[in-house]
């Protein structure tokens, strides 16, 4: 009897007593029933009168791999800031699935809802080891009390080991991440994203600084992720975009200029003007 009670106590999820700290964290689960992963409607963001985003409309389907291109200042990074809660839009709607209103959630809440973001400049924890970087990113209860008494199960170690092999950093596991090459840092950040088990991945120039070989491997990885995940990739490298193969959206001055497969977009007169015209 006593054993049964103590067992049921141990079986309780560890974070249950810390729930009041971030009680608002639990959002209605992700609803992809209508096949839409991300829905942006008339999003406008101004900074001191400058319209970084101007009535932007964008829909990403569940499982889709979408590339976003556009000249500097087109609003690509601001768009990611809006989706991840860093910047609040002045107007417009932003939904993740059918139910999750991104304009009302904080950055950590959006991360928990299932959106992972890779920054333009690789942003990893340089003084932590590669292993610790992945450990911190791993999907788990991330409240203070749980972290104090957290320990790594064998399962968790296996997951980290799998990811290490996938991003080809298994030999670097115990080195400080700051010592990695630029390309390796990019991979580590992608690995951290995968550890979060997100449903939507936002990737800002993921292959900048990579060798051709690394770039092609990254493209293969992303293509393999599509279907189960939705991916939004911002990239300037057209060879990479071509390799990814998905639909391409061209942003210009904060709104969508053209959309379609790469060949169509590249032959669009307005797109040519924006890129070459001035």
């Amino acid at each position, binding site marked *: 009897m006593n054993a049964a009670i103590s067992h049921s106590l141990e079986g309780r999820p560890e974070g249950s007593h810390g729930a009041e700290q971030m009680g608002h964290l639990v959002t209605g689960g992700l609803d992809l029933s209508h096949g839409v992963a991300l829905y942006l409607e008339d999003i406008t963001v101004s900074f001191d009168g400058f319209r970084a985003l101007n009535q932007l409309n964008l829909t990403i389907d569940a499982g889709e791999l979408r590339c976003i291109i556009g000249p500097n200042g087109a609003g690509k990074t601001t768009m990611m800031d809006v989706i991840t809660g860093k910047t609040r839009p002045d107007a417009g709607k932003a939904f993740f699935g059918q139910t999750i209103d991104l304009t009302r959630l904080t*950055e950590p809440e959006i991360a928990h809802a299932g959106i992972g973001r890779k920054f333009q400049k690789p942003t990893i*924890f*340089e*003084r932590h080891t590669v292993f610790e970087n992945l450990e911190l990113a791993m999907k788990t209860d991330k409240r*203070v009390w749980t972290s*104090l008494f957290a320990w790594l199960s064998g399962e968790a170690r296996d997951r980290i080991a799998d990811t290490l092999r996938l991003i080809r950093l298994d030999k670097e596991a115990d080195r400080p991440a700051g010592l990695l090459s630029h390309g390796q840092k990019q991979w580590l950040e992608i690995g951290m994203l995968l550890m979060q088990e997100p449903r939507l991945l936002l990737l800002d120039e993921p292959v900048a600084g990579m060798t051709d070989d690394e770039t092609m491997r990254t493209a293969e990885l992303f293509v393999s992720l599509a279907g189960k995940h939705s991916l939004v990739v911002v990239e300037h490298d057209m060879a990479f975009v071509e390799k990814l193969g998905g639909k391409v959206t061209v942003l210009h001055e904060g709104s969508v200029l053209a959309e379609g497969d790469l060949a169509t977009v590249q032959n669009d007169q307005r797109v040519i003007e924006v890129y070459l015209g001035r």
Partner: protein
Amino acid sequence: MRKPLVVRILSSLDTRAWIAMAVFLGLALAVVPVLHLALPEESPFHVSTYAITLLGKIMCYALVAVAMDLIWGYGGILSLGHGLFFALGGYAFGMYLMRQIGHDAAELPAFMVFLDWKELPWFWLGSDSFGWAAFLVMALPALVAFVFGYFAFRSRIKGVYFSIITQALTYAAMLLFFRNETGFGGNNGFTDFKRVLGYGITAPETRLVLFGLTALALAATLVFAAWLVKSKFGRVLTAIRDAESRVMFIGYNPLWYKLGIWVVSAVLCGIAGALYVPQVGIINPSEMSPGNSIEIAIWVAVGGRGTLIGPIIGAFVVNLAKSWFTVSFPEYWLFFLGLLFIVVTLMLPQGLVGLWKKLMNKEGAAA
């Protein structure tokens, strides 16, 4: 297999550190008391009352330095108001010591009599109880730190702005405590303590017990801090220090992590303050002066932030230098302190511990 908490706490320090700690506690709890009590004063091995008071005081400072290092070295948040939490702990325990002075517990502290107050203000209620005082020593700094920290961290105030606000906070508190009407003895603060738990406060045995308790508190704090920074909480904390936005985008809310370590740090300062007051025999608002809080940061910088032993070394080195300087060249101490801070910041960013590591590495490379 999940290791029990005790095992994890024990393994947060390595064998060498445990041996060093055993030696330290042996000295503080056995050797010093014997040398003080058993040897005559003219013996060269006699440890004087002055030395015990000085070392006890510096151990309190070392405890504050470790607390400061948790928030600054590991959390990347420079507080220039930690003197406030130290003073709050000191005042909370000082109230109890004031109530122990009189023979009759109902008697008012002398400064209230001078103010012609007829009864204790409400916030002095319960101050004659040791348990209540011990509770306040921790609860008061925790409460102030929580309220201040919640709003500051929620508003994402960072860097130098945060440091300046903490300076303003401790300065404002100092002005408040300077007022006689505040009810804490004005600029004289509390002094002339007679007893603690009924024992004479200047008796050699009482001094030695306070000295030993301070050593124990310092050792316990070190173990606790080592466990804390080696836990996942510690790794998240240093991650927030190095790349806060990344931490948010992988789903941690930095607010609660910063607030957690901030409150822990304040409570440790409160405990240090409570141990300090009976040994030094006085607490007054000057403990809250902005300069005192800056000095705490200097101890940590000199010793080496982001290491646990560094702040302790820094607190001892700077304060031993201070007691020598203020006797030999009192007017030059502040110049020396400023110079020390500049030299350390420019030439030894990792402090004395960093210097030591560098020297060891060179030797290792040469060998």
